[in-house]
């Protein structure tokens, strides 16, 4: 029968911890930049000029209909033939930002398009310019409405970052894979990695649910 030996894997805890920290860092950077890309693209699709909306539409559909690992490999292995060489870390961040940006764009657009007409008319009748209308009146409640979907998407991207280990970015699954291929304790290594991912996901969800209403879109009544 299989005898479990968690000691052999836990003895490598610095590598696991570094991997978890790397995954968290990767997610933090990607969430901030991807969120910004998402808002910009959401604006472009809902409010922007027609040509821009169409261009962003192509980007969104291209990313949402191809696998993340293919996007990652394209950036890491494909771009060098165009003369762009990126480190595994940078390639991972770019792939995650591009990926999250596309999904976030659709989420934000849904929020923006659900703005009640009366709210817009009220804003314009107060002589606010378009920038003020968007940033003060439309965006905050829109983000508030779609925040749960946004948080989920960020967690999905964090979990998806597991494939970044394939291009030698030293995140959590890379650490687990390395440990497993050193001592062949695959089951234990992946079980511990799974627990760490679960912990990270819960942490990120709680953090964003707490931070969202306080810092991102203010205390809005979302009903």
């Amino acid at each position, binding site marked *: *029968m299989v005898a479990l030996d968690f000691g052999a894997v836990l003895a490598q805890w610095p590598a696991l911890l570094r991997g978890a920290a790397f995954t968290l860092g990767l997610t933090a950077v990607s969430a901030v930049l991807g969120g910004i890309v998402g808002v910009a693209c959401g604006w472009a699709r809902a409010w922007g000029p027609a040509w821009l909306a169409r261009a962003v539409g192509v980007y969104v559909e291209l990313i949402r209909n191809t696998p993340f690992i293919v996007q990652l490999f394209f950036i*890491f*292995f*494909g771009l*060098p*033939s165009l003369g762009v*060489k990126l480190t*595994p870390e940078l390639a991972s961040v770019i792939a995650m930002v591009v990926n999250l940006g596309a999904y976030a764009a659709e989420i934000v657009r849904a929020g923006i398009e659900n703005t009640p007409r009366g709210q817009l008319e009220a804003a314009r009748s107060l002589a606010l310019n378009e920038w003020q209308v968007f940033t003060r009146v439309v965006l905050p409640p829109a983000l508030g409405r779609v925040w749960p979907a946004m948080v989920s998407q960020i967690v999905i991207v964090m979990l998806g970052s597991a494939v970044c*280990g*394939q*291009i*030698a970015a030293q995140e959590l699954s*890379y650490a687990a*894979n*390395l440990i*497993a*291929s*050193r*001592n*062949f304790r*695959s089951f234990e290594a992946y079980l511990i990695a799974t627990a760490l991912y679960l912990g990270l996901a819960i942490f990120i969800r709680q953090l964003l649910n707490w931070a969202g209403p306080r810092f991102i879109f203010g205390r809005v009544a979302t009903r």
Partner: protein
Amino acid sequence: MHRRPLLWAAALALSFAPLLAQAQAALDEIMAKKVINIAIPTDFPPYGYVGTDLKPQGLDIDMANYIGAKLGVKVELVPVTSANRIPYLQTKKADLVISTLGKNPDREKVIDFTAAYSPFFQAVFASKGLPIKSAADLAGKTVGVTRGAIEDMELTKIAPPSADIKRFEDNNATVSAFVSGQVQVIATGASVAGNMMARNPQLGAEYKFVLKDSPNFIGVARGEDKLRLKVNEIIAQAKASGDLDKMATKWLGRPAGDLPN
């Protein structure tokens, strides 16, 4: 209704029976089913790769078919990667691993090995412009290697701390990283490097120094001595009859030579 618990117990006992009967039973099972599952590489020319007809071919595949023929059973080829070939054996998804498997103490703790069946060596390769003579010259360079492979272990032992070792999932990714310039140096098997250099002459890559001479062994699940001894017998006969040399000459361009048992 009173018989229910008994029924459950019987069902439970039955479901555990295969588990209990597993030790030492691999050979009997193979002979009874007339089928042997052999893990082979598909990303490792000339040992194992997919030809233009989309069928696996190479030295390891020939060896797998050879053993199947000698046992008189059908061979089911199971494609594996460097990183997952040992788990395949541990989880009984394969009876034998014939996948350019080198022998080292870590691996000997979890699986058993037969005698060696083909020659192999791992080395460091880089472009002609990079002056690299020994491990110390790797300082400050990025080195690509396949995670968990023998060359990874050797490189990790001898590389200076300032060498940036990037570990990839399989040989294809490692080679892609070198060819696309993402790493300056590649540590890999001679056959992989030979194939890579033949296809990408523009890289100007050359052999730098050897990491390890490691002939290939066939992996058997821990404790399956009956199967292991039977395979050893087949290898010894093939060695004596010159079949091993013939196979090595066909795929590697040189005879198998003196292989350890």
